[in-house]
């Protein structure tokens, strides 16, 4: 099945052929306590305390919360507000490494996932601090706990990696194929589903082949090559492409009996349970024409952007933009002191000349955005409504269904900043709704 709309950007997967390399140990790490969607944990260490790799630095505060762990052994130097990729400084733990990189004694294997109870697996996943590694950073144990009234019959595993440039999932599928498959099996056990489908875009047939070969015979995984089209990795579109179920507007995958997990997350889950390894590192694609040596790196969580770029030979003099994630939906960075987080799938460095300025000329009604929108919205109209501050009409235009994928802006000849418009439009529409509610 193919979804309607979408675009074919230049993929520029510069690093697809480069194996994952471990980054050498550094002297200093900066671990923000909030790296996921949900409440940040409560800090459980003190200044000056010695910690080991994998030792929890926070304790979950509530259900939708996960701990963060020490990326290496060393001493807690400072607990204070530090630069954070989201923009505003956030409470972070500065760690001075001792160079020994010793593992925490309690970070021991949990057991065999094939025999452990689903609840125990779920706890282990939470304690390991695992979140959606595709970039969504929603705590995985929460996603694996669907409410009683939402029966799940299918686990969809996202190996699409539809963002240009990024290759971290591609490399994980190639190099950790067994862990990915085992992880899928583990998640199936937690969810109690008998069916799982793995979707990979057809520009990575080697990844799918690797998974197929590595798949243990007792796991009933279905592997599917999907059309290479952005945003194939969007949850709703991936589900549609794999099993033709349409997540209702405003709904979640569980409304159609599906849970979606990323391939890297699956591997992380099995590593946590089988090896007792909490999330202390992740694969990051460092790429773009403005970085000297593009690479796929295994980076400790809390490594600063500066350190990563230095390790990759530095950047060119005409560096224009640094982005966490891909060029379509990634988040722009303005401080190289910011650390790598659990959700950092890539670090993209674009030259000044490659950066598109969206200046917002008038819409010429070319219809490109209408053809491109995978949600089948009419972005041209929504854009005009935002420009004219006609907030109350935005609901009827379905602005809340926009997934901010950027396909519309990508093809707009007038270079209208459509995504920015729709982010604003959503806020304003919600405000309108609140006003209406309070009157009612």
């Amino acid at each position, binding site marked *: 099945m193919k979804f309607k709309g979408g675009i074919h950007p230049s993929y520029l997967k510069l690093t697809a052929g480069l194996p994952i390399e471990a980054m050498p140990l550094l002297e200093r790490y900066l671990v923000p306590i909030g790296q996921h969607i949900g409440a940040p944990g409560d800090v459980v260490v003190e200044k000056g305390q010695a910690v080991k790799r994998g030792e929890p630095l926070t304790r979950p505060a509530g259900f939708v919360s996960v701990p963060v762990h020490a990326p290496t052994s060393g001493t807690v130097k400072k607990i204070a507000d530090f630069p954070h990729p989201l923009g505003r400084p956030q409470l972070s733990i500065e760690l001075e490494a001792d160079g020994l990189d010793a593992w925490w004694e309690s970070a021991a294997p949990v057991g065999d996932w094939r025999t452990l109870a689903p609840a125990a697996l779920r706890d282990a996943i939470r304690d390991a601090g695992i979140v959606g590694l595709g970039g969504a950073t929603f705590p995985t144990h929460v996603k694996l706990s669907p409410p009683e009234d939402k029966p799940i019959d299918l686990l969809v595993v996202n190996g699409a990696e539809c963002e240009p440039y990024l290759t971290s999932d591609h490399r994980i599928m190639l190099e950790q194929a067994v862990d990915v498959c085992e992880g899928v099996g583990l998640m199936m056990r937690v969810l109690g589903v008998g069916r799982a489908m793995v979707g990979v875009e057809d520009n990575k047939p080697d990844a799918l082949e690797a998974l197929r070969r590595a798949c243990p015979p007792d796991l009933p995984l279905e592997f599917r090559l999907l059309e290479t089209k952005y945003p194939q990795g969007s949850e709703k579109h991936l589900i549609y492409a794999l099993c033709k179920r349409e997540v209702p507007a405003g709904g979640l995958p569980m409304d159609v009996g599906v849970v979606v997990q990323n391939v890297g997350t699956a591997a992380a889950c099995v590593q946590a349970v089988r090896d007792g390894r909490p999330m202390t590192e992740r694969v990051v694609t460092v790429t773009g024409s403005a970085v000297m040596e593009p690479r796929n790196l295994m980076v400790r969580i809390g490594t600063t952007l500066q350190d990563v770029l230095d390790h990759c030979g530095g950047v060119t003099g005409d560096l224009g933009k640094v*982005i966490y994630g891909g*060029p379509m939906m990634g988040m722009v960075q303005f401080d190289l002191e910011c650390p790598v987080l659990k959700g950092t799938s890539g670090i993209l460095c674009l030259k000044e000349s490659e950066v598109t300025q969206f200046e917002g000329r*008038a819409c010429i009604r070319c219809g*490109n955005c209408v053809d491109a929108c995978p*949600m089948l919205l009419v972005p041209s109209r929504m854009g005009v409504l935002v420009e004219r501050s006609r907030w109350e009409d935005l609901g009827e235009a379905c602005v809340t269904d926009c997934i901010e994928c950027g396909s519309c802006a990508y093809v707009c000849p007038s*270079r209208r*900043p459509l995504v920015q418009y729709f982010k604003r439009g959503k806020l304003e529409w919600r405000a309108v709704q609140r006003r209406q509610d309070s009157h009612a």
Partner: protein
Amino acid sequence: MNTPVKDTVSVQNLIVSASPHVHAGQDVRAVMRDVLLALVPGVLVGLWFFGLPALVVLLLSVGGCVACEWAACRLLGRRSTVGDLSAALTGVLLAMNLPSGSPWWLVLVGAVVAIGLGKAIYGGLGMNPFNPALVARVFLLISFPVQMTRWVVPRGPGTGFDAATGATPLGAVKEAISLGRPLTAVDLPGAGDLLLGDMGGSLGEVGAAALMLGGFYLLWRGIIRWQIPVGFIASLVVVTGIAHAAAPDRYLHPLIHVLSGGLILGAFFMATDMVTSPVTRRGMLVFGVGCGLLTAVIRLWGGYPEGVSFAILLMNAVTPLIDRYTRPRVFGAPRRVLFSVRRGS
């Protein structure tokens, strides 16, 4: 490839802006340039047949439109939009809608009307509800009917200078019918002449084949979608075909309808004007079909021999309405009742 290396990165002034961070590379100027390029074969055929006077009309029209655009931007205190080439395109399209021997003042009045009344007063490119070139054409047709229907009949290629004036094929037919004469009494060009352009008309009414070539280029480049030209031509063929089958001595063969008058220019270049046509695919089809039906009605039963301009302008007027009612079903929204074959609950 990569320029200077710094051991340690230290960057200030990083560009900060929202996603997406890359773009397909197209811009308005490139779109307009493509349309202009697509018009080249048609323009060349027209110039070949009508010679120097047609060239004068073309240059005056383009120059006039560009000058008006510049002046309008100055007057309104806006950044000049001459560079986006849309005014130049309007100029070419206007020239193609005028008799090739039009006096200079007629062309300039047309340019002022097209850019001033057709576009600038609405706020410039993107804001105008009607196709500016057609606004000018119809304005001139109503204000200066004599000059606007003084068609030059080409006397073979390259002899534009001493061409005589005469009626367009559609005009001749309309006249014959109003005088009660049968169509066989009218000296009509053959299909080959129509395709090549050997007949009376405006710059853009001759050379159907060359115009179509340009149209296909635009389709191939993805600048226009097939829905408008196909809907336009198909519906015209159906209606004129039925009429012709019922009364062959009163109504022309549909092929002649397609190849004569401004139809090809209209279907591929005027009706497809992005600003004034729908943005959805289904809307484009409705729009194209509407244009074809209206053209057929005006040509067969209306007071004017040619109906393409009026048809397109009328459809321009209902474009917002068409857009409203042809919005696609949003992904995940309930299907319309008529097609409710949803899986499960």
